């Protein structure tokens, strides 16, 4: 059905709003009250839950409801990410708003029996508060300090049905832009909102649109950057999987504003589910006349094409990305000219990140002031973080700018796994730095993170504990940049390799104090002289760890020890007199270097020891120590 006018869109919204009425109401009704009423079961279809069998849960639920004669009354849908990935697969029942965690397909018959037949929640699959052990059915503490703008529809609607998106004000912002605003007034609203690029750079989005709009040309392009290469960040993927239409709508708005009739989504080939959902969304938008010629009978024509990346981190950089779309090696080029002046095929081009775009429709509908009222002085709105690593509640969290690390890691994230001690948080991926304990209470925004030697990046937030070696982490990131350096400029190509070699030397116990100076000097030179953001930020993981964890570097260099017990060459395993001579370690030693008679203490031959730790893992008497 093609929508011909704005009224058609409004009518469709009115028709389907009923779908949404029951979802997440402020006053949910109880499970018993919901008995007999139409219900909806939303099963998380995000990547994490997908990998832990959520499609099988959907199938099992449908089959069980059919068997029990409830299929007419209870609708099962797959949604985007709920964010609470640690406890996946997750499903939510509406209108009683009950959230079930860690569901497996074999729980389904019991769940249907208890919840839908008996009318009481299945207690054992509800969230259990780790402190009070109380079971909580909805309004989980994980969501208390969160504010979902970019993720507003993820887990609320089915991403594969345009009608659900239309029912939650979908494409209303587009209609407003087409019929009630001029491109200039749209730019003003975006500038007023203070929205800045969420992909890492933090450049003001309104200014970017204005620059592209003001450059004289017969054609312009809008590109959505979905080349999310930062290891440990998965917010763009989750938005595309959970709410693809919001990105399409924002691209339409951007296209109309800057004067483009063609948009590209550049997405990693490693994201098959996101690609699949985007393809569905584009197809539906075309069917409904929201993409194509004369959209809603206006004179605006717009098409979107998906372009696949091929596994190159540097393609997240906008000039490299443009080259990749043009079908060549994804190497960055010198700026200026900026893409806003000369981008794709030499035309003015605006490149925006997925999360940035997802913020656009609500800003248009609610106004720039509303958005500018959230966050800090220079960083407005919210930011999505992919919280991962050694934290209890791994997941996707969206918080207002200015939230502290402590709130994110301890209040939302539930603290450090296995009651260990927090050591550092890494933000900004391979371009960022490690933030130590003393900055846990710093409000996070673009500026404050740079001030403490890290950066916002795309929003990966990796938590590390006492058992992580900071030198090894720096080495890990450098390995990544060496791998991903495109080779165009010498500073990055050769410099990162030298940095990696020095770090390897240090982790092998062959480092000297001169090496430490060399790391700092070389790091600063690479930052100053690299061509693009990849090289300019590649030394950050080293420089920040040297600044905040210098003692760990010194331990590796001077004392030849690894305090966290990670760097193999610096470890030594010994058997203490607690040894009962059970022979288990000797049997499991892959090098066969443990000797001793049964019932007598054993000995490790240090010359031949591989330092694999198999003996320590197997010992039942805590008789083996690593130091």
């Amino acid at each position, binding site marked *: 059905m093609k929508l011909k006018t704005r009224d058609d869109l409004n009518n469709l919204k009115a028709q389907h709003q009923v779908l949404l009425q029951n979802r997440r109401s402020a006053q949910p009704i109880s499970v018993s009250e919901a008995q007999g009423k139409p219900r909806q079961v939303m099963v998380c279809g995000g990547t994490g839950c997908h990998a832990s069998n959520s499609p099988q849960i959907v199938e099992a639920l449908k089959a069980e409801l059919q068997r029990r004669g409830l299929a007419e009354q209870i609708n099962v849908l797959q949604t985007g990410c709920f964010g609470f990935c640690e406890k996946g697969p997750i499903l939510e029942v509406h209108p009683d708003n009950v959230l079930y965690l860690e569901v497996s397909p074999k729980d389904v018959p019991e769940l249907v029996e208890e919840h839908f037949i008996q009318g009481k929640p299945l207690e054992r699959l509800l969230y259990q508060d780790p402190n009070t052990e109380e079971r909580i059915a909805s309004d989980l503490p994980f969501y208390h300090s969160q504010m979902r703008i970019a993720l507003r529809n993820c887990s609320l609607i089915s991403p594969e049905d345009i009608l659900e998106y239309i029912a939650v004000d979908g494409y209303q912002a587009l209609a407003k832009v087409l019929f009630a605003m001029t491109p200039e007034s749209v730019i003003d609203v975006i500038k007023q909102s203070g929205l800045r690029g969420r992909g890492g750079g933090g450049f003001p989005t309104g200014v970017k649109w204005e620059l592209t709009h003001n450059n004289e040309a017969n054609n312009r392009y809008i590109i959505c950057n979905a080349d999310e290469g930062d290891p440990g960040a998965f917010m763009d993927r989750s938005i595309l999987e959970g709410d693809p239409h919001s990105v399409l709508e924002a691209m339409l708005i951007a296209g109309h504003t800057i004067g483009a009739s063609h948009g590209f989504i550049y997405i990693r080939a490693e994201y098959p589910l996101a690609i699949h959902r985007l393809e569905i969304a584009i197809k539906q938008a075309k069917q409904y006349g929201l993409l194509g010629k004369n959209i809603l009978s206006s004179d605006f024509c717009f098409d979107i094409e998906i372009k696949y*990346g091929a*596994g190159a981190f540097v393609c997240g950089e906008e000039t490299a990305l443009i080259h*990749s779309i043009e*079908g*060549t090696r994804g190497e960055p080029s010198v700026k200026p000219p900026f893409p806003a002046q000369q981008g794709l095929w030499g035309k003015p081009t605006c490149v925006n990140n997925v999360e940035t775009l997802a913020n656009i429709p609500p800003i248009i509908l609610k106004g720039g002031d509303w958005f500018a009222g959230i966050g800090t002085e220079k960083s407005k709105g919210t930011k999505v973080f992919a919280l991962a690593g*050694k934290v209890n509640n*791994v997941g996707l969290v969206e918080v207002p700018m200015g939230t502290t690390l402590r709130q994110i890691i301890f209040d939302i994230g539930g603290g450090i796994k296995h009651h260990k001690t927090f050591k550092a948080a890494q933000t900004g991926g391979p371009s960022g730095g490690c933030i130590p304990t003393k900055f846990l209470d710093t409000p996070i925004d673009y500026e404050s993170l740079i001030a403490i030697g890290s950066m916002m990046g795309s929003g990966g937030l*990796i938590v590390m504990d006492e058992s992580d070696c900071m030198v090894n982490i720096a080495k890990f990131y450098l390995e990544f940049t060496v791998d991903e350096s495109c080779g165009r400029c010498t500073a990055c190509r050769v410099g990162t390799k030298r940095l990696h070699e020095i770090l390897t030397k240090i982790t092998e116990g062959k480092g000297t104090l001169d090496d430490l100076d060399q790391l700092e000097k070389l790091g600063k030179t690479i930052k100053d002289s690299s061509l693009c953001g990849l090289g300019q930020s590649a030394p950050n993981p080293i420089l920040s760890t040297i600044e905040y964890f210098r003692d760990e570097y010194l331990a590796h260099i001077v004392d030849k020890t690894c305090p966290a017990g990670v760097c193999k060459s610096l470890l030594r395993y010994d058997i203490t007199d607690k040894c009962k001579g059970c022979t288990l370690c000797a049997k499991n030693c892959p090098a066969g270097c443990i000797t001793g008679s049964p019932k007598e203490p054993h000995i490790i031959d240090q010359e031949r020891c591989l330092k694999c730790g198999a003996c320590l893992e197997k010992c039942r008497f805590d008789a083996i120590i690593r130091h």
Partner: protein
Amino acid sequence: MCDNPSPYNPYQQLDRYIDGLPYKKENLIAILHHAQQLFGYLPDKVQRHIAAKLDIPSAKVYGVVSFYSFFTMKPRGKHVVNVCMGTACFVRGAEKLQQEIEKQLGIKTGQTTEDGHFSLDSLRCIGACGLAPVMMVDGKVYGRLIHPEDIKQILDEYREPALKEGTST
């Protein structure tokens, strides 16, 4: 392999795909994706074929193929095992997982088993950080891989029945 025309000739399929594209040279990356799907990898011969078809130097095709890590010029195994080396997996023991798989398959990362059954590679973050450490076999994600026995069980699912341990031949 013979180059006689037949409906199953991958070169012909590739040509048909290229002919159907509205513009060609700009779609080199999409063409290479398609070719890799058809051939399993991108040997010299395929690269030269594409270069001739698009009327561009084969050095340019090679330049693009060698730039992007998604493209491979070596044949891959029947099943491709990818270990996630994203940061979240790294701090939760991806290195150990990688070593364990290397041990179980008897190959190093980047190699293919002699029988051509498994290839082992690493990739950066598949976005399933909640399940870290994870691996992907032929696109299916497996998470929370701490115990060697679990890993063995998963790999066994992909072995030919006769190769499974404890199964008589």
